[in-house]
C-alpha cells in the first residue's frame, strides 16, 4: 500500500498536536514539533503510520524536555504567560478562566505516574488498546487496567484541586 502522507496528516495532525501540547505546554512549540514528526514520517514512510507518528512524537517530546532542562540552566526563567492573547476584551475573563482550568488539568496530569499518563494521552489521541500496548511495552491485558486507574486518578486529583479552590474562595469571603 502506498504511503499516504496527506491522509495521515489529515486524520492525525490534530491529535498529534494535542498529544505534544500536553507534554510541552506550549501551543506553538507543539505545532513545530508536530511538523517535525510529519517531516520525519515523509522521509520514513512507516508501515504503521498512525502508531509510528505517536511513537516519534513521544520521543521528540522527551528530547525536547531534556533540551528545555538544559536551556533552563543558562537562562533566567521568565514566568510563563498564555501565548495566544485574546483579541477582544470581552474574552479576557473567559481566557483567564480557561488558563486557570488548564493549569489544574496540567497539575492533575502531573500527579499520574509517567506510564499512566502516557497511556491516558495515547488513548485520548485515538490509539487502540493494541497500539497503546505496543508503544508502552505493556501487555495488552494491562492496558484496560492502567487506563482505568489513570482515569480514576486524574479525575480525583482534579476534583481535590477544585475542592481546595472552593475552600479558598469560601475563606476569602469570610
Amino acid at each position, binding site marked *: 500500500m502506498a504511503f499516504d502522507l496527506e491522509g495521515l496528516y489529515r486524520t492525525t495532525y490534530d491529535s498529534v*498536536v494535542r498529544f505534544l501540547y500536553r507534554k510541552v505546554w506550549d501551543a506553538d512549540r507543539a505545532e513545530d514539533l508536530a511538523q517535525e514528526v510529519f517531516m520525519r514520517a515523509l522521509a520514513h514512510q512507516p508501515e504503521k503510520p498512525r502508531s509510528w507518528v505517536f511513537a516519534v512524537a513521544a520521543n521528540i517530546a522527551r528530547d525536547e524536555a531534556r533540551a528545555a532542562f538544559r536551556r533552563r540552566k543558562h537562562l533566567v526563567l521568565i514566568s510563563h504567560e498564555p501565548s*495566544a492573547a485574546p483579541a477582544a476584551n470581552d474574552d479576557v475573563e473567559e481566557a483567564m478562566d480557561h488558563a486557570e482550568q488548564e493549569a489544574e488539568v496540567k497539575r492533575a496530569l502531573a500527579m499520574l505516574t509517567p506510564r499512566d499518563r502516557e497511556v491516558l494521552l495515547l488513548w485520548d489521541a485515538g490509539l*487502540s488498546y493494541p497500539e497503546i500496548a505496543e508503544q508502552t511495552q505493556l501487555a495488552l491485558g494491562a492496558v484496560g487496567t492502567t487506563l482505568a486507574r489513570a*482515569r480514576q486518578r486524574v479525575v480525583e486529583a482534579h476534583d481535590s484541586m477544585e475542592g481546595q479552590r472552593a475552600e479558598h474562595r469560601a475563606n476569602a469571603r469570610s
Partner: protein
Amino acid sequence: MPNIARTHVPEAELHAYCDGELSPSQRVEIAEHLLGCLICRAQHAEVAELRARVTTLLAIASPRQIGRRVVPPARRPRRASRMMIAAAVAIIGGGAWLLVPPSDGERRPTQLATSLGLVDFFRLGHGDADLAALRDRQLAMAMRTIAAPQVQAGRAAPQFLRPLLIGTGTEVDPVVTSEWTFATMDDALKAANGRLARVADIPVRLVRIHPSAAGGRPTFLIRQELADGRFVWVVEGLEGDVAPVEQLLQASGIAMSAATRTRPDYVGTGAQTTITVRMVRVVGYLPVDSLNVLAQKLVVR
C-alpha cells in the same frame, strides 16, 4: 465455555467495553450481563461518566487553535517529485510547513466542517477534486472528531463543543425488549434474504432482530462502531413495523437520520398483492447532520 460461572464484570473490562476494545462475543456477553445485573449497570454508568469527564478535562488542555499555521502554497513547486503528489513540504522563512497539494484556488466549504466544528485547514482546497474520496476523508475525520470536544478555530477565546455526554460509546441498545433477539450477522443476512442495510466500512458489533407482526420481513437493529468508539444503529424494517420502534427511539432522546426507502416490493399474487417498502434510518446520540452523512454511506443491499 458456559458463562454461568461469570461473576460481576471487572472494572477494567467495563472500561474496555466502553472503549469498544472487546471482541464481539465479549461485548455481547457483557451487554447481556448488564441487562440483568443492577450492580454492574450502576458500575457501567459510573465508568461511562468517568470516561466522559476525562475527555472533557483533557479537552481543556488543548491548544486554542490547531492548524492555523498551515498555509496553502502560493504556487505549485516548479518540479513536483512523486512524493509531492501526496503532499508538499516547503521551507518558508526557516520553518517547515506541510502543505496540502495546491488546488485550482477554489475552497470547498464542507458540511461537516460547519456541523462538527472541524478545524480550518480542512477547508483548504483539494487538488485531486475527487469528491467521493473527499467525502470519505471527511467522514473518517468526522468520526474521529465528533467524540472529542473541539476548540473551534477562528475564535479568540476557546469554545468547547461539548461532547455528547449521554452514551459516549457506552449505551446499551436503545430498544431493549424481550422481542428483540441477538443474532449473528450471517443469521440476520439469511433472515433478510441477503439484503440488509448497514453503513459501509464501519464494523458491525451487534445485531438484533425483531419478528414482524404480520409475518413478513423482520425489523433489524444493527449496531456499528465508529472509529471513536461510539455507536450508531441502523434500523431497518418494513415501513409499518419500524414506526413503533421510531417512537421508542424518539422518546429516548436519540437522533435519527432522514429515512432511506427502497423501491416497493410486491408480495403475493393478483388481488392479494401487498406493497411493502423497506425503510432504513441511522440513529444514535449524535447530531442529526452527522447521522445524515452516515446515512449517505448506507449500503442497502
